């Protein structure tokens, strides 16, 4: 049995990650896969997922002396409470938080709701685009899990194309509605 690429446990999740047109094989155990945001554990309450992720991270034993310059929060402290110390922590711990957010938010990575200073829109151009992107990203991870690499590559290109397309006007002020 293959061992997990990141720790000593037996690997249960096998997949091929496509990056820069190259396929790379990955073998991970449940915990490491969840920590990396590859697997969604739909049946486990949010707190448990959080704890699992945090434990997996702490077992990996990396020393992370990183602290938020504004509030002094450390990653270790966040692990204990599940609560961040200030808004800046989302930037300071962006890398670590990514897995936590993706697995507790069904793989979502971007806000598609009411913009600051604006009104909630049922279907603003920005929201629609983000919703579509989120859908494609979810399909991609499903395709990768099912080892449908052709489909995955196609989805990957679609996502890239959408990401590189010019943004529908995003601004801090109220969103104009109607013509995009």
């Amino acid at each position, binding site marked *: 049995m293959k061992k997990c690429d990141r720790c000593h446990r037996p690997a249960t999740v096998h997949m091929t990650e496509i990056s820069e047109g190259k396929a790379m094989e990955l073998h991970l155990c449940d915990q490491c896969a969840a920590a990396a945001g590859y697997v969604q554990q739909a049946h486990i309450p949010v707190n448990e997922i959080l704890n699992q992720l945090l434990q997996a991270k702490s077992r990996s034993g990396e020393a992370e002396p990183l602290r938020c310059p504004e509030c002094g929060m450390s990653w270790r402290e966040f692990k204990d409470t599940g609560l961040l*110390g200030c808004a800046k922590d989302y930037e300071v711990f962006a890398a670590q938080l990514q897995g936590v957010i993706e697995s507790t938010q069904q793989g979502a990575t971007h806000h598609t709701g009411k913009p600051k200073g604006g009104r909630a829109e049922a279907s603003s151009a920005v929201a629609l685009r983000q919703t579509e992107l989120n859908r494609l990203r979810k399909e991609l991870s499903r395709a990768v899990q099912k080892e449908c690499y052709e489909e995955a590559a196609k989805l990957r290109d679609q996502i890239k194309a959408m990401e590189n397309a010019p943004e529908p006007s995003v601004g801090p002020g109220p969103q104009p509605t109607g013509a995009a």
Partner: protein
Amino acid sequence: MKLLDLIKQNGEWLAPGGPKSEVVISSRVRLARNLEGFAFMSKAGRAQRADLHRLCRQRLLALPAEQPLFYVDFEQTDDIDRQLLVERHLISKQHAAGEGSRGVAVSIDEAVSIMVNEEDHLRFQVLRSGLRLRECWQQAEALDHLAQEQFNYAYSERLGYLTACPTNVGTGLRVSVMLHLPALKLTGEIEKIVRAAKDTHLAIRGLFGEGTEAIGDFYQISNQTTLGRSEEEILGEFNDALTPGIIKAELAARAQLEQERPLALDDRIGRAIGVLRHARLLSTEETLYFLSHLRLGVAMGRITGLELETINRLFLQIQPAHLQRLLGRPLDGEARKAARAELVRQILAVKPP
């Protein structure tokens, strides 16, 4: 407006005539917001907490809201006052048990409450009786919009509204419905519903009691994800698809009981009436259990002369803080059981079923 005045009214969410009130007790929308430039609560020192509290209180009370707000400062309340607010669903248990400078702004009709210095700096809540999530959302959104002129929210272009816990980030929106599902419980189908809810990334829990075991067959269902979907998508799924599906299942289970096991059904209801009208000592759990069956009997028209509203009021008033405030004195366990039984007897005796 004083806290004591609250116990005399029923609270918006227990008002009669809400849509689908035979199954849906209430609908709730909650928005989590934080202020730019202030640490979240876990890193907020005493002085910052006090500053933030003063600022939020002052600006919230100045909002040109539809309904005037009154404010409850928790440093000037006792445990029973805060428990009373929990029982009325105006604040969370955590907020009641918390520490330091904090409070809540409440609208006179109790439909709106805004917790200050809970897990996030501000938590807006709109609570209404029956299935009315869209109405709740429209009111919450309007309030949030007014508040945006007073507060500079912590926000990122990518992640949306930034919250103390990453499980709330994005919209900060939590929608929930409180459902009375006694027939699904009696037919044993509730397990299926619980599993289905979990598969759809929804949280389901008993309203009274801890964990998933629901005393009195009341369940609260809420969305788990707040990021990657618009408010409209979250609401639409809940209000238009999910809740109507559960209501349909509960009503089908009621019809099935009525057709296939009418005697067993009336036996349940009759036992509930018997205990509630004659017991001399009632614990909260026991009362909730029997009130649930009584409510089922009234909702199905198997008992006449009693209104859902009366039963809703009982659900509220039999709880410890309400009971003690109604009687005007603190009561220990046994005295509380006696007072509860007496209250239930009085209210149900007015119009014998």
